[in-house]
C-alpha cells in the first residue's frame, strides 16, 4: 500500500461516536508523529543503532561493573608487576601489580559521570540563557551574548585549564570547567531557535490568550528547540569526555589512585618501552566511548534535522 493510499484511507473513515476507540492497533502504526518519524529514520542508520547499544552497554558497565570485576581497583600485587595481558589479567597489570582490566571497568563510571553531568549542567544553563536572551532581547540579550563572546574568545581547553587553576584540581572542578565552556554553545543555539519561534503563529496565539512569559518560553518555545538541543548534547558528551580525560592527563583532574582513564594513560607514559599495554587499553576505552557518542550523535542529527526530511 502506498503512502498516499494510507492517508486517503484515514481521511475517508466515517466519524464515529468515540473516535479514540475507533483507532485500531494497525492504524496506530500508521499515524506518524514527529517522534515516530525520527525513530524510523534513526533505525535506518545501522551504525548509530550499534553505537547506541554500545552506550547502553557502557552505562550498564558503569552501574554494575564495580561489583563484577575480578580484582579490587587498588589491590596491589607486587608479584605481578607490569605484566602483559594474560588469562588472569585480561589487560595486564600496572607498576603496582594492579589489574588494569578492573581499573578500566571501574573507570567507566567516572568518565561517563563526568562527561554526562558536565554537559547536562552546561545544557541547562545554556538553554535558560538562550531562551531569555532570544525572547526578551534588548539589554539582557546584549549582556548574555557579550558573556558568550568572551567565553568563545578562549580556546576550549585553555578556558578549562584557567578554571581549574582557580578552583584547584579535582574531578568536581573539571565538571564545572567543562560545563562552563559548553554553556555558550547551547546558549547561542537556543537563542537562534527562540528568535525564530518567537514570531511563530502558535506563540503569538498563546501570547494573545494571556499566557505568561514563563509558560510561553517553557511550554511553547522550548519544545521547538529540543531536537537541536538533543543533537548538540550528544555531540558535546564525546567532546567533554575527551576534555575531562585530557585535564586528568595533565594532572589537573582526577588524582591518583582514582582509576580515571586519562590518568591511567598518563601513568603509562613512564613504561612506554616495556609495558605498552598500560597506555594502549585506557586509550582504547576513551576512544570507543567517544566514538560511540559521536556516531550516535551523527545518527540523531540525521534523524532529527528538519532540513533533511525526505
Amino acid at each position, binding site marked *: 500500500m502506498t503512502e498516499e493510499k494510507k492517508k486517503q484511507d484515514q481521511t475517508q473513515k466515517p466519524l464515529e461516536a468515540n473516535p479514540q476507540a475507533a483507532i485500531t492497533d494497525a492504524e496506530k502504526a500508521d499515524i506518524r508523529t514527529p517522534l515516530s518519524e525520527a525513530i524510523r529514520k534513526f533505525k535506518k542508520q545501522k551504525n548509530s543503532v550499534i553505537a547506541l547499544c554500545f552506550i547502553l552497554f557502557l552505562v550498564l558497565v558503569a552501574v554494575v561493573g564495580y561489583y563484577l570485576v575480578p580484582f579490587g581497583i587498588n589491590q596491589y600485587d607486587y608479584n605481578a608487576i607490569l605484566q602483559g595481558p594474560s588469562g588472569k589479567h585480561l589487560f595486564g597489570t600496572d607498576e603496582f601489580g594492579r589489574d588494569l582490566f578492573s581499573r578500566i571497568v571501574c573507570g567507566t563510571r567516572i568518565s561517563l559521570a563526568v562527561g554526562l553531568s558536565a554537559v547536562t549542567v552546561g545544557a541547562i544553563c545554556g538553554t535558560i540563557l538562550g531562551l531569555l536572551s532570544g525572547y526578551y532581547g534588548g539589554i539582557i540579550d546584549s549582556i548574555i551574548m557579550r558573556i558568550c563572546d*568572551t567565553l568563545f574568545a578562549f580556546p576550549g581547553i585553555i578556558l578549562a585549564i584557567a578554571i581549574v587553576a582557580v578552583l584547584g584540581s579535582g574531578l568536581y572542578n573539571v565538571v564545572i570547567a567543562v560545563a562552563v565552556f559548553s554553556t555558550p554553545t547551547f546558549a547561542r543555539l537556543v537563542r537562534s531557535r527562540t528568535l525564530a519561534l518567537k514570531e511563530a503563529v502558535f506563540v503569538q496565539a498563546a501570547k494573545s490568550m494571556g499566557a505568561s512569559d514563563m509558560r510561553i518560553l517553557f511550554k511553547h518555545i522550548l519544545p521547538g528547540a529540543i531536537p537541536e538541543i538533543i543533537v548538540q548534547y550528544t555531540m558535546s558528551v564525546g567532546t567533554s569526555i575527551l576534555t575531562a580525560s585530557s585535564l586528568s592527563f595533565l594532572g589537573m583532574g582526577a588524582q591518583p589512585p582514582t582509576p580515571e582513564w586519562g590518568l591511567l594513560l598518563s601513568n603509562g607514559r613512564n613504561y612506554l618501552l616495556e609495558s605498552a599495554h598500560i597506555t594502549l587499553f585506557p586509550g582504547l576505552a576513551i576512544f570507543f566511548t567517544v566514538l560511540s557518542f559521536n556516531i550516535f550523535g551523527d545518527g540523531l542529527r540525521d534523524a532529527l534535522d528538519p532540513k533533511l526530511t525526505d
Partner: protein
Amino acid sequence: MLKYTCKRILGMIPTLLIVVTFVFFFVRMIPGDPARLVAGEQATLEDVENVRVSLGLDKPIPVQYAKYVTGLMKGDLGMSLRTKRPVTKEISTRYVNTMKLTFISLFWSAVVGVALGVWSGIHRGKWQDYLGMAMAVSGISMPSFWVGFLLIMAFSVKLGWLPTTGASSWKAFILPAITLGVHIAAVVARFTRSSIIETMQEDYVRTARAKGLTERVVIWKHAFRNSLLSVVTVVGLQFGFLLGGAVVVEAVFAFPGLGSLLIESVNYRDYPAIQSLILIFSLQFVVINLLVDMLYAYLNPEIKLQ
C-alpha cells in the same frame, strides 16, 4: 572592503577589553598567596611582606589593574614569579615554537582533510565514502595524548626514527605536528564532504556536466571551488582548537612551547605568566578569527559588494 575591515577591527576592541579584564580578575581569584610562594617556605612574615611590596601586590586591586593595563600597552607583561625574568622573555622563544607547530599542523591537516573530504563526497554512498568517513569519525574520537603515545611507541621506541621530545631539529616537530593535526584533519574532512555533496547538486554542476566537461574538471573547477568558501572558514576556525590542543600535545612530547609553559605556570601558581599566557592564547584566537572573517569577505563576492 576597507570600510568592512575597519568596522571589524573596531568591533574587536570591546571584546579584547572584556577579555583583558576577565583574565586579570580571574587570575586574582586563584587561591594561595603568591608573595609567600615567591618568598619560599622558610621566609619570615617580614620577608613575605617585602616580596609583596616589591611585586606591587600590596596595592589595591584597581591600582594593580591600571598598572597592568598600562603595562600591556607598552608590551610589558610583568615578571615571572618562577624564573624572576620578564614574562615576555620567557614567552618569546616558546611562542615561535608553538606557532611553528600549529602552522605545520594546520597545513597538513587542511590538505589531507580537504582531500579526504572531496574523495568521500564524490563517492557518496560507496565504499570510499564509508572508509573516508570512518577514518574521520575515528580521528575526532581519539584522545590526542593517546595518538601521541602510539606514535612515540611506533616511530621512536620501536623504529627509532624520530626523537620523542624537544624542538631542536625539524625531526622533533614531525610527531607533535601529526598528533595535533589528526583531529582537525578529521573535522575538515567531514565538513568538506558535506559541502561538496551540497555543491554537487547545484544547477551549475549539472550544466558543467551537460556541456560535456570531464568529471575531473567538474569536480575541481566547479564543485570544489564553490565549496572552498565554507571550507576556508572551517579550517580557520579550527585554529583555536589547535592552540588549545597544543597544550596537551606539548605535554606529551615535552615540547618547549606556550602550552607546556602554561602547565608549568599553573602548577607553580605563577600569576603573571598564567595571565599573560591565557591572554596571548585568546588574543591569537580573536585575531585569527578576524583574519578568517576578512578572508571570507574577500573570497565571497556577496559581502564584497555590500
